[in-house]
């Protein structure tokens, strides 16, 4: 992996101005991260003054090599990790009081569906979010069937999670956050470990969602197909943020950050 010096980063940051200047006006701003820095308890720094802003309805991809800080950044978006800096969702500052509201607004799907699906049955897993939001039973049932319907898994409600295939688990994992009626969908490597058919059907599924999305991935073909905006991270820095086509057209940028367009 190439060593990135801060001097290089400056160049990229000027070459690709932050999205906050294009498209993220105050009125449409859904998610904003400002000057966020974070180090893990062992002292290893994972994020360096990261600033991004996602507008309502925007679909953005988060790419970069392993260890770039993508997952760490995502864990900040609903307050599971808290670093130095500012994170706002829907105009709300992340703090103890706002946390329940923010967790309902940010639908976070983790990379490994075995971590996401912790209940014995599919139905209970999809109902977990709404149940903990304090909704009544009728509304929970309605939301669970709507969410399963949306991912095309209605028949799976009573199935046991551990008997499903990886592709099925991924769909259910997405349903578990759709049932919370989120404002923004945050997915961590949704196509990792899927066979081509499962990958294709997941991409088609994501294509249909009208939701705002922030998706971390190594799948640049999917990025090109689904996400007009791309944010490149490396070693805890946001090194580029701009229109996908423009960034993908810069082979030296991609190569410098360990990315490869097939």
């Amino acid at each position, binding site marked *: 992996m190439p060593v990135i010096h801060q001097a290089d980063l400056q160049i990229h940051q000027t070459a690709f101005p932050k999205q906050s200047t294009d498209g993220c006006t105050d009125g449409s701003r859904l998610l904003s991260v400002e000057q966020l820095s974070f180090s893990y308890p062992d002292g290893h720094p994972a994020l360096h003054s990261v600033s991004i802003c996602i507008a309502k309805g925007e679909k953005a991809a988060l790419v970069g090599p392993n260890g770039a800080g993508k997952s760490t950044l995502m864990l900040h978006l609903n307050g599971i990790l808290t670093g130095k800096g500012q994170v706002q969702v829907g105009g709300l500052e992340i703090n103890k009081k706002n946390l329940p509201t923010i967790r309902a607004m940010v639908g976070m799907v983790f990379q490994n569906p075995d971590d996401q699906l912790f209940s014995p049955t599919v139905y209970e897993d999809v109902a977990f979010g709404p149940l903990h939001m304090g909704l009544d039973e009728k509304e929970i049932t309605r939301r669970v069937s709507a969410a399963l319907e949306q991912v095309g898994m209605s028949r799976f409600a009573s199935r046991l999670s*551990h008997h499903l295939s990886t592709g099925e688990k991924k769909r259910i994992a997405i349903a578990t956050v759709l049932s919370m009626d989120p404002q923004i969908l945050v997915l961590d490597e949704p196509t990792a470990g899927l066979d081509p058919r499962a990958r294709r059907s997941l991409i088609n599924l994501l294509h249909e969602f009208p939701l705002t999305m922030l998706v971390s991935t190594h799948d640049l073909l999917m990025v090109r197909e689904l996400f007009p905006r791309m944010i490149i991270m490396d070693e805890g820095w946001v090194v580029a943020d701009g229109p996908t086509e423009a960034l993908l057209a810069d082979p030296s940028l991609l190569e410098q950050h360990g990315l490869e367009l097939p």
Partner: protein
Amino acid sequence: MHVHAFDRYHDAHSLVHRLDPRVKVIVTFLFILSNLLLPDGAWLGFGLSWGLILLGSVASSLGVGYTLKRSLIALPFALAAATVLFSIPGEAIAQVQIGPLLLVITDAGLLRFTSILVRSWLSVQMAVLLVATTQFPDLLHALRHLYVPGVLVSIISFMYRYLFVLADEAMRLLRAREARSAAADGQTSGGSLPWRARVAGNMAGQLFLRSYERSDRIYNAMLARGYNGTLLTINPHSMQNQDWVVLLIILLLLFSFQLIGRIPGL
């Protein structure tokens, strides 16, 4: 590849399968209690209890031999009670010489031992029947709605969910070891016993670390969906008339077994 070996549920449509899981849990619990309360040597009472299990097996279309076969696995544990053979005063019927030790088997000891054996064997059969006719999640619901503490039910629930994941993980580790357990020409594979033991120890440690890290990720996933320390469940079950009827009939039966078991001379 997944390990499915732990699922003991036997899918079928029968009266027993359709019963409310709460009824089945209560009946199983009381059945075990009733076995414990039957006096030593109450053979008729034990026989009737077994009849109830056979009835349940037939009604749940599992067949007569099903619980019998599955229950054998628990028999070795009953051998822990073997000491009562020698420790209860009574008429000597046999002697065993083990080194300097002379053990005397008494008739009262033998009676107690066989009764314990029969009790545990019957109890295990009922538990086998319960698990075979009730989906595990339903069982958890039943426990929750019978006011078993939530933390305990959550622990059982997580254990059930992740036993499979853990077993898969262990299987992958074993396979990785096997794949690298090669031998050069003319050499035997593997090292000394202490070396092998160390490898096995490392694997166990690895498994623990992986599980520990996974538990962290699961907790994050729970937090992300609004978990705040109390696990909530919804109850899809409701007691029907037939549930109450079955519960009442079995309670009466168990009560009568107790009476019959206490009639002297039977």
